[in-house]
């Protein structure tokens, strides 16, 4: 008898939790979609403002974008838990630093290649406990799908991965790092990251 009651109570609790948490997540989905929409609009506006000097523009764009990314998580996931925990705290710190710097440089460079593409935020979907926000980069000749993947941490929704045309940034780094770590080890990898990113790319001006 007692057991039945406990069972019943548990069930009731589960239902209660269910009713409370589901609408909350649905609200979050809409909120996250709006967040992405707002951020993208701000970035595009800044990119189209041809009067602003580039360093100033880049700084402002970073101010817009940085808060929604969880770079530390991205760095850790890109390396993988196994390798991450094998590193000393000093190595972890250096790895994170170099990795985040890479992402930063890469992104700033992509901005230089921007011409007049439009970004359309399509929909946000709840996938398990993650929110995937789908957007399209529309140019004159085609349309590219980009998915921002958010997870909830400390009541915040933060990006932990971005998928472009089905290509996950984190997954791509994982494969590369795995190969390098298997053939070399942590120090050679860090050495490689230290020197990487030392050449510049022509801009798309006058494209």
């Amino acid at each position, binding site marked *: 008898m007692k057991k039945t009651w406990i069972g019943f109570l548990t069930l009731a609790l589960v239902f209660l939790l269910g009713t409370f948490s589901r609408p909350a997540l649905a609200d979050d989905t809409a*909120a996250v979609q709006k*967040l992405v929409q707002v951020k993208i609009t701000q*970035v595009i506006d800044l990119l189209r403002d041809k009067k602003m000097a580039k360093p100033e523009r880049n700084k402002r764009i*970073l*101010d817009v*974008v*940085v808060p929604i*990314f969880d*770079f*530390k*998580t*991205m760095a850790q*996931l890109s390396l*993988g*838990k196994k390798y991450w*925990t094998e590193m000393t*705290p000093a190595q972890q710190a*250096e790895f*994170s*630093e170099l990795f*985040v710097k890479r*992402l930063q440089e890469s*992104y*700033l*460079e*992509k901005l230089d*290649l921007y011409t007049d*593409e439009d970004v359309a935020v399509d929909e946000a979907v709840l996938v398990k*406990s993650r929110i995937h926000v789908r957007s399209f980069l529309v*140019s004159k000749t085609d*349309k*590219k799908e*980009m998915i921002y993947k958010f*997870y909830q*941490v*400390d*009541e*915040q929704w933060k*990006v932990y991965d*971005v998928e*472009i*045309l*089905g*290509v996950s*940034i984190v*997954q*791509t*780094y994982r*494969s*590369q*790092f*795995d*190969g390098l770590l298997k053939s070399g080890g942590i120090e050679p990898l860090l050495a*490689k990251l230290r020197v*990487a*990113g030392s*050449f510049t*790319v022509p*801009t*798309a001006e006058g494209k």
Partner: protein
Amino acid sequence: MKNRFICTTLGLLGLSFYGQIAWGNPVLRIEPAALPLMVMDSPETAKPVAELAAESLSQSDPLESLESMDSLETNSLKDQLAPFAPPNQVALLLAPASMDGSDTRVEAEQATDGGFVDLEDEFGAPQQEVNDPFAGYNRAMTGFNDWVFLWLLNPVAKGWRAVVPEGGRTAVFRFFKNLLYPLRLVNNLLQAKLGGAVEETGRFAVNSTIGILGLFDPAQAWFGWEAHDEDFGQTLGVWGVGSGPHIVLPFLGPSNLRDTFALAPDWSLDPITYYAKGYPQQIGIWTFKSVNATSLDIGGYESLKKDAVDFYPFLRDVYEQNRKKKIEE
């Protein structure tokens, strides 16, 4: 068995070497502007040190994993970040993105454990992803293709860009794309994508007439009809054929066994194959097509290359993930 497999592969490589220079390489066509909004650095939004310290204390490590990270490490998040980021950046990393602005840190501390495990599960063990027995050859061929791109294709494309305005090159790009309608139609049908087949047919009809032989794209601009790129490699994938080992083709770039097989039927549905009188002319047209496409994305390849820590596995992964996605769609 293995020998036969290798012979077949080599035979196909030879074939592909012969024919198909400008088979639009989907991977290298990723426009860099498509890469994501991600960065950090924000030199001037500094926060007072006291606020910073308060924040770092109240935040728990989102990636704390019960068995793998001791609490000492967890609490030293700020210390970990400190060496590489000026305090204002640490503040940014630690600062909540404040979606609702409410202060919920107490609950947050309990809600974060297992983050690492949870997210980690979404990503496969890296090396299981790609079947790569030809890694040595593939690496060498990637080097060769890189050379071809940087020293032949790219300089010519830059010259072409200097001579012809963007509008003209875009028109040429569309013209060639329009020509591949038969390929897209057949593969949409083979995958039972009737909507795609219908829209493609509408596009071909409108763009070939009003759009002057496909030079313009009124179907998209006026009616919003999208292209539905499908090829035989994708069709085979939809039918359940696995990708097989990754193979880097000369001139064409990353591919795999399945997609390499699919080149022959793809080729048979390209009008250029029938229009051209002999291989030299065909290769010429394909080369022109490739030069034109490259001219619309100058700097894109270099930028993509710079994103790689190790170029060959990077390209391989980009290709395989992209193909997988296209097949799933």
